[in-house]
Every structure is written in C-alpha cells, then in structure tokens.
C-alpha cells in the first residue's frame, strides 16, 4: 500500500466529518473551522495535483483491495487524469466557497455542526466518485452523494415539505440507479472487471454482440451504455426523472448551490464523459443522450419562464443547463460538455448563493414578484448576481459564452442529429437569457413590492457571504477564458487539455459558419435580455397581457407540464393504493407479519423446547455427549458400506 497525497484529497473531508459528527455538539458554534480547514486542505492538494496533471502526469493506482474473490475485486483506487483533475478543482473550490458562505448563512441554526459535518461528508463522497479508478468506487460515491443529498434536502426535517422533498429525491433516484446498477453488473459479467483501464482496453470485444430481450436483438454496447445513462438521468435530473430537483430546493441554499447545481447533479455528465469510449461505440446511445439533453434543456427552460420562486427558477435553469451538457456529450463533444460543467459550476453556484443572500435579506421570502429594487440595498449581491446572469445568458467575454458557444458549434458540425440539437440549443440560449434577466429585473430593479416591515429589514449580507460571492463572480467571468476558440484568438486550452481522455470531434465547418453560429447565439441572447427588459422594466403590463392571451400555455408552463401530476396519477397513487390495500392489508398484514412474527415465534418456541434439554444436570450433559457420539457412529456405520 503506497500512501500518496492524493489519498488525502477525499480523506481530509472524511476526517472533518468524523470529528464534527462525534464532537461537534461540544463546540457547536465553532464547528465550521474543522470543516473549512479540511476542505481547504483538499483544495490545496487538488491544485497541486492539477498542476502535476498539467505537466503530463497521470496517476492510476490501487490503494488497496477491500475484497478479492476470483475476478471480483473491490478496490479503492485512484485515477487522476485530465478529466478528474478538472472535477477536483470544481468540487473542492465550490465546496470551499460554499463552506465559507454557510458560516454566515447558517449562523445561529440549531444543527450548525450537523450541517457542516454533512457538507464534509458530501465533499468526501463526491471526491470518491470522481477520483475512483473503478466502477465500484464510482457506485459507492454515487450512492453516498445521493444519501448526503437526502440528508441535506431534508435538513429542516421538521418541515413536512422538506422531509417529503428529501424522500422524493431519494425515491426518484432509485429508478435511475436501478438501471445504473444493472449496467454495472453487466459490465462485470461481460468484461469481468470493474477497473476503467481494463474496461476500456477490452471494450471492443463487445462490439457486435447482441442480447435478446423479449424478442428484440439489442446491441450489448448500446444496452450497457443506456443502462449507465439511466443512472445519469436520475442523478442529473434529466427527463423523465427531473421532478426531484425543483423540490430539492427545500434544502438550505448553500446545499442547493453545492449539491444541486455545481457538483452532484453533474455526476451524470461526468459518468457519460468518463465512459466516452463506450458511448462513442453506439450511435443509438449517443442519439438518445443528445436528444434527452436537448429536449430536457428546452423543456426546463420553458418552465423557468413563468415560475415565481427564485430558487425554483434557478433549479429549472440547472436542469436546462445539464441538458446542454448531455447534448454536448451526445454529439461527441465530451470536452465541450465538461467545459460547460466547469463554467456552469461557478456561475450557477453564484446564482444560488446570490439568491441565498437575497433570501437572507428578505427573511426567507422566495417570490420574486414580492421583491424589487434590491439593487440599492445590497449592491454586492446585485453586482455579483448580475455577472452570473450575464455569464449564463452567454454574453461574449464571460464564462458562459465560451462553453455554450463551443457546444453549439460542435453540435452544428455533428450531422443531422447535431443540427436538430443545435437549433434547440440556440432557442434555449434565448430562453435562458430571458428568464435569467427576468429574475434580475424583478428582484433588483423597479420598486420594492414587499411590506414596509420587510423593506426596513433589507441589508447587505455579512462578509462571510459576500466574499465567496465575489470570488465566484471572478470565476463566472474568467472560467471561460481557458477555452477561447482559435477563431477568437484563443487556443481552446481546456479542449486540448482534455483531449487525451475525451478526444476531440472532427470539425469540418468553415470559419464563416462558425462566425454565423456565434452571431446567432449572441443575437438570440441579447434578444432574450431585451425582451425581459421590455416586459419587466419598460412595459410591466405585457406579462399579464400575455398570460391572459395565452392562458392555456401559461397554465401548462406554470404547472410544469403537469409531470408531477402525471406521476402522481400513474405511479404514486397506484403505488400507494397497492401499498395500502394489498401490501399493508394482505401481504404485510397477513403474509409478512405472519412470517416476521411467526418465524421468530416459532424459533423462540423451538428454542424454549430445546432449552429444556439444557437442564443444568451434569448427567444429562454427559448423556447428550454419549448420545451424540452414538448417533454419529451409527449413521456412519449405516451409510458406509464396507
């Protein structure tokens, strides 16, 4: 076992978790020190590791094997290549900032130390997920982040809606993870290994193999890819399993920023990118990924247009942007997908934390219709939020523009499917700009629409919250500069950096076409912002007019396409009905109760009888031994024919 510093990257947060969860109650208000120091340590080590990877070092080794049995080997190991290095930076930097932000945001909460220990546990799990060199460890991290997400969504567990949202997230993810689990099993069955390097080295042997399911011949590669993608759909809240993410906003805002925007929900994209050799082998799987991403991004963006809950709008925006990343992966532009993941982490975390800062000032108010004019009360929050919105809208020069443009350009070049998703992506870009600025205009501009009492309370947040905002704002501006395309005078550093792992799709479009793609997306983004300005700044009557004119469309969007209701009628209610009538009544009441109570009862009764043999009399014991010897001897003599 070689201990190297990479081990410490996930280990430090784990140590922080252990200390805080055990001893946190003794120093309540100081719990954040340990957590922050742990994550800071991870962050510094991640930066060092990143620099090493930048110099061309790729680390792949098994720390130790937990269980070895034949081919089956469960090991803890680390694969730190270019992809992991980027993820390490994203996870540790955002986590560090969110930790610091939480000092102010969670101040005075009764479960202060509990909150920080969960954040640490989450960071550990996420780091295990991205650093693992085998599917088993990925699966461990995958489930562990899900568990932490459950803990943190339901953090205010005394609130019914929060507890429900936690359960919803967990249960909805079960659907995806079921497929994912089967995918992992199939990888092991057909390739007899769970290590990435071995999987990718042998993956070509699966080419052309088919498997018969209900009479359909399905390509093995396609099937495994789609099963793994099932997990990604659940974790990254893509259609049709997107329903949990909006409800997950019941958790504290720092959690939304860290888990439900920057890191955990991007695990799905990481999975697809990590398994790019597998996905690239199946056109069908690629198409499914691309279309799922594209449709989800459009779907979520349209819902975001009409919502009033600030966090939910950003949540739908996250779903939409995750769709963008899948869209990129689906057209083979894995590098662009990861690039977008990287930039998105900063501007989206910033949006959430900004929203948190607003909520902090508004005493928990979430409805943007009841805000307005906050610009002058909280300038730092306003400016940073503005930067994030400009970035996500795709205005040239800021982070969001470069990654979004890269995706759109590569999609444009990727055949028929690519053209379709390019069109969808461009539309979504416009919608994104619109709803992002709708928040900005309704929240920070105009007149304050809340009560006087609320207005009296308005204040800028403490520096522990505003400093992370400013740092993230730097990220939201500059994160994209690592991927400036050659056309605009850059070298697309991140693309080349990731190329050894993710490859780079062949581009055959002309410069003129690239200019056109850029121009269209910029025009669309500006159009979105302009429309928002018209509707919410200059002519505030228009939204209501539109709402009345297109009442049916508005209602559908307001109700998020009734997907929750659909699930309620088709899945939740039948399940509950079956649960209460059949399971509780018959299966549980009669069969399981019968078994659960019956078997121990039977055993206990059996035990009581048996116990009588244990009389305490020495003679009986000696008799027992003699009898035992006698029985064994007789049995052997009877069965052994001499």
């Amino acid at each position, binding site marked *: 076992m070689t201990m190297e510093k990479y081990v410490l990257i996930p280990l430090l947060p784990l140590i922080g978790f252990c200390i805080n969860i055990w001893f946190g109650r003794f120093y309540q208000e100081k719990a954040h020190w340990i957590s922050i120091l742990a994550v800071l340590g991870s962050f510094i080590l991640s930066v060092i590791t990143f620099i090493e990877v930048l110099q061309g070092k790729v680390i792949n080794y098994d720390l130790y094997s937990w269980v070895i049995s034949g081919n089956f080997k469960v090991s803890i190991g680390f694969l730190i290549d270019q992809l992991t290095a980027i993820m390490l930076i994203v996870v540790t930097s955002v986590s560090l900032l969110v930790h610091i932000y939480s000092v102010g945001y969670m101040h005075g909460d009764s479960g202060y130390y509990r909150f920080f220990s969960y954040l640490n546990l989450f960071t550990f799990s996420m780091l295990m997920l991205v650093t693992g060199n085998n599917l088993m460890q990925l699966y461990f991290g995958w489930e562990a982040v899900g568990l932490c997400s459950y803990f943190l969504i339901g953090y205010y567990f005394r609130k019914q809606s929060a507890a429900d949202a936690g359960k919803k997230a967990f249960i909805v993810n079960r659907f995806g993870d079921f497929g994912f689990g089967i995918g992992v099993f199939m990888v092991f069955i057909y390739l007899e290994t769970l290590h990435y390097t071995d999987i990718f080295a042998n993956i070509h042997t699966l080419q052309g193999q088919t498997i018969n399911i209900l009479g359909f011949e399905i390509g093995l590669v396609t099937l495994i890819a789609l099963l793994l993608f099932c997990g990604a759909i659940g974790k990254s809240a893509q259609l049709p399993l997107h329903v949990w993410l909006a409800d997950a906003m019941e958790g504290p805002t720092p959690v939304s920023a860290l888990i439900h925007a920057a890191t955990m929900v991007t695990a799905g994209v990481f999975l697809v990118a990590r398994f790019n050799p597998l996905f690239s082998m199946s056109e069908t799987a690629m198409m499914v990924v691309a279309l799922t991403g594209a449709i989800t991004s459009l779907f979520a963006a349209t819902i975001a247009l009409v919502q009033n809950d600030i966090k939910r709008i950003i949540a739908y925006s996250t779903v939409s942007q995750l769709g963008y990343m899948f869209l990129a992966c689906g057209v083979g532009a894995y590098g662009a997908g990861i690039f977008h993941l990287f930039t998105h982490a900063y501007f989206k975390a910033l949006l959430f934390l900004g929203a948190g800062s607003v909520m902090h000032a508004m005493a928990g108010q979430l409805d943007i219709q009841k805000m307005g004019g906050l610009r002058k009360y909280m300038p730092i929050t306003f400016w940073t939020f503005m930067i994030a919105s400009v970035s996500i809208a795709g205005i040239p020069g800021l982070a969001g523009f470069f990654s979004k443009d890269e995706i759109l350009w590569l999609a444009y070049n990727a055949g028929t499917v690519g053209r379709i998703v390019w069109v969808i992506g461009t539309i979504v870009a416009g919608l994104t700009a619109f709803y992002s600025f709708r928040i900005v205009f309704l929240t920070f501009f105009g007149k304050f629409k809340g009560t006087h009492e609320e207005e009296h309370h308005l204040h800028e947040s403490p520096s522990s919250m505003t400093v992370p905002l400013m740092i993230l704002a730097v990220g939201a501006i500059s994160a994209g500069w690592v991927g400036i395309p050659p056309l605009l005078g850059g070298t697309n550093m991140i693309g080349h950096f990731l190329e050894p792992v993710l490859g780079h799709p062949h581009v055959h479009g002309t410069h003129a076409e690239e200019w056109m793609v850029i121009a269209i997306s910029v025009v669309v983004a500006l159009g979105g912002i302009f429309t928002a300005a018209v509707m919410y700044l200059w002519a505030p009557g228009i939204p209501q007019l539109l709402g009345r004119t297109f009442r049916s469309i508005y209602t559908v969007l307001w109700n998020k396409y009734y997907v929750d209701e659909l699930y309620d009628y088709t899945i939740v209610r039948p399940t509950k009905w079956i649960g209460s009538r059949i399971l509780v009544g018959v299966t549980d009441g009669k069969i399981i109760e019968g078994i659960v109570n019956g078997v121990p009862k039977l055993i206990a009764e059996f035990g*009581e009888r048996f116990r009588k043999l244990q009389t*305490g009399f*020495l003679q009986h014991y000696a008799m*027992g031994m003699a009898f035992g010897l006698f029985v064994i001897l007789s049995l052997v*003599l009877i069965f052994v024919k*001499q």
Partner: protein
Amino acid sequence: MNIPLPDLTPIIPEIIMSIVTCALLTVEVFVKDKTKDFLGIICIGTALAVMYMIPMSQGVTFGGMFISDGYSSYFKFIFLISLILTILISFKFIQREDAEFGEYYSLLMFATAGMMIMASSADLILLYLGLELMALSTYILAGIKRHDTRSNEAALKYFLLGAFSSAILLFGISLTYGLTTSTNIYQIAEHLKQGETSITLLIAMIMIICAFAFKIASAPFHMWAPDVYQGAPTSVTAFFSVGPKAAGFAVIGRVFFIAFESLQMDWTAILIGLAILTMAVGNILAIVQTNMKRMLAYSSIAHAGYALLGIIAGTTEGLNAVMTYLLIYAFMNMGAFAIVILLEKGENIKDYNGLSKSHPLVAAMMLVFMFSLTGIPPTAGFIGKFNIFMAAINAGYTWVVVVAVCFSAISAYYYMRIVMNMFMKPMEAEAKIYPNPANGAALLISLLMVFIIGIMPSVVIGYTFQMFM
C-alpha cells in the same frame, strides 16, 4: 550413555512461557495484594516478547513430535492476542469480583502455553499433553471465585465433562495407534495413504472428532458451554470463548488435513452435520436468552459453526479463512466482553436498556461489536464471514453456505436486540460503569482492529500471514 540434547529453538516460546509462569507462581506469595497488577503486566510483557520470538523459532524437534511452522505460529499469535486482551480486561475486574489470586495470571499463562503446545504438536500424545495442560488450567479458572457456588458448579461441570471428552479422545488415539502403529500425525498420514481403511479406523476418527468438537463447543457436545460461561468470572469467560476454541480449531486443522487426509470424504460429511447442528443450536437458543453471558455463549457456539465451514471446504483457502476468522473473532468477542465487564451490571440483557442515553460512547462501541458479530460491513466480522463462505462456495458446498447465511440472518435478531435495547428502549436505571486504562486499552485495540480489518482486510491479513506464515 550420552543422550544428545534436542534442538530447542522451535520450542523456546513455550519454554519461556512456562518458566516465567512458574517463577510468577513462586514470587506471587511475596507480592502484596495491592501490587498484584504487576504480575499481570509481567504476563503481558512476556506474551509480547514471545510473540516477537515466534517467527524466529521455526523448525521441527523432539524427533518430529514438535513442529513449529507458519500454521502453528499464526495460531500462537491468536492465543497470545487473546491472552493479552484477557489480562487487560481482568486487572480491575478481578478485584471487583474478589477473585484476585496470584495464580489467576499464572493459570491464564499455563492455559496459553498448553494451547501453544497443541498448535505445534505433530504427535497425538503431545497433542493430548498440551490439551490437558490447557484444560486443567481452564477448569481451575472457571472456579476461581471460590466462594461463589455458580463458579464452583461451572468448574466441576467443566472438569467432569472435560474428563469425559478426554477419555473419548484417548480412546480414539489408542485405536488409531493400534491400526497405524504410530501416534505421529505425519506417519499416520503415510500409513493411511496406502489405502487401508476399516470400520475401526472410522470409529477412531469419529471419536477424535467428537473430542475436538467438545473443545470448540460444537453441538451436540456444547452443553457445558452456557453453564460454564455463565458461572465463570466474565474475564475468564472471554478467555474461554476465544483461546481454547482457537486451539481446538488448530488441532482440527492439523489432524484432519494431514493425518486423516485420505478420509476427507468421511470427516467432511460428519463435520457438515455438526456445523449445521451447531449453527442451529447456537443461533436459535441465543434468541431466548435473557442473560448476556449466556447469550454470548450461544453466540460463540454459533460462530464455531461458521468457522467449521472453512474446515469443511478442505482447501488451503478454507483453512486460511478459518485462521483469519478466529483472529477477527478474538477481537470482536473480546470487545463485547470488555463492555460487559465495563458495566457494573452487564449480566442481564435488560441492563442495556437506554445505555445510549447514560453512556453514549459505551453504547456506540457495543454497537460496533454487535454489528461485527452479526457480520455487517465495514466491520471485520463481515470480512471473516465473507472469506469463510467464499471458501466453502469455491469448494462446492454452496448449499451449506446457504444454510449458514440463513442462520446468520437469524443471528441478527439477537445481536440487534441488544442494539435496540441500548438505543431505543427507555433507561430503567442509570447504568454505572467502571472505566480504567487497561480495560480502555483492550476496548480501543479491539475497536481499532475491528475497523481496520473491516476496512482494509487484505492489508492486515496479508501482513499477519506474512509475519507468521
């Protein structure tokens, strides 16, 4: 006549153990009551020194009667571990129990020396000698609380039944000698390989099996165990549940894998029957117990049943799994007993009600040991069971493993009941604990090992195998 002195290197650990113990017995008279802990510390020091020496004293001596190889070394390591842990949990406890006689430590040492001789004996006569050295010491240990009738009863029962089993063993040995003209395990194997089997040989083997089954408390030869475990002082019970059991497995491995190798088909069949019966009796009867020590007695019976699976597998993998299992079992069982000793009243299961409220740390540790005994990852108990079951499956005994897993599931009931009592039941009376550094050290060692083996098994197991084998 000039008789050359045999090579003493392989037996030096046993010699040192014996000399130190005899010295302790004589010195003990002059030691004041207040300073008797000192004797225990000497014992621990000796045990550590011997442990250090074991890997260096390998070889065969006394005309092939005594063999010190990797196999025996590993078992000696387990015996010494259990000896050290026992002494650690004994210090203050035997004062509390009013059983602090100087011979207490000497007897533990003698019993351990006996086990070490058992593990190293390549001759049935020497094996018997070691076995009796161990057994006689343990009989006295069981009755060391001279004024306690239960303790006396335990000692007497243990002695009489033990004598009974010794008689069976000697009968088996003499029959074997009559058939093969040797008591040397390797010569017996040579002889039997020539293909001569007879009913008498089978009878001899069955008698040896039954005697060994008594030592590991396998049903139907287990009946002494609950009474003795309950009657003996708790620290002694902890020792009984680990040391002699491991010694029993050590000789089973040596005798059946080598001497009776050619009869593998027959003893496997018998052991399968014994293993299933043992698991059934241990687990089912553990459920109805209300006394903690009795429950742990039945639990240790059940664990002997699981461990037998590794012997049944009949492969090196199986044997290694048994050895690993016994090492793990030593830590988790000693840990559980250390908690029982830590509490003023830990004898009844209902004493544990609401323990998490009065002593959260104690309850949390007990939880870990209970999880480990049940076999839940990431504790060591899981690894132990996993290895054993895997070895049995690889050897083709899948159905036995299925049975074992079912019983293992049943065992969750009584282990988790303790956990439930500690964490979910209301507190009846504030539990009083007697913490002391020695007991704390034993707890800490057990706890750490349960986690370390559970989390990085291949590292620890690999290391111990490398050290001693």
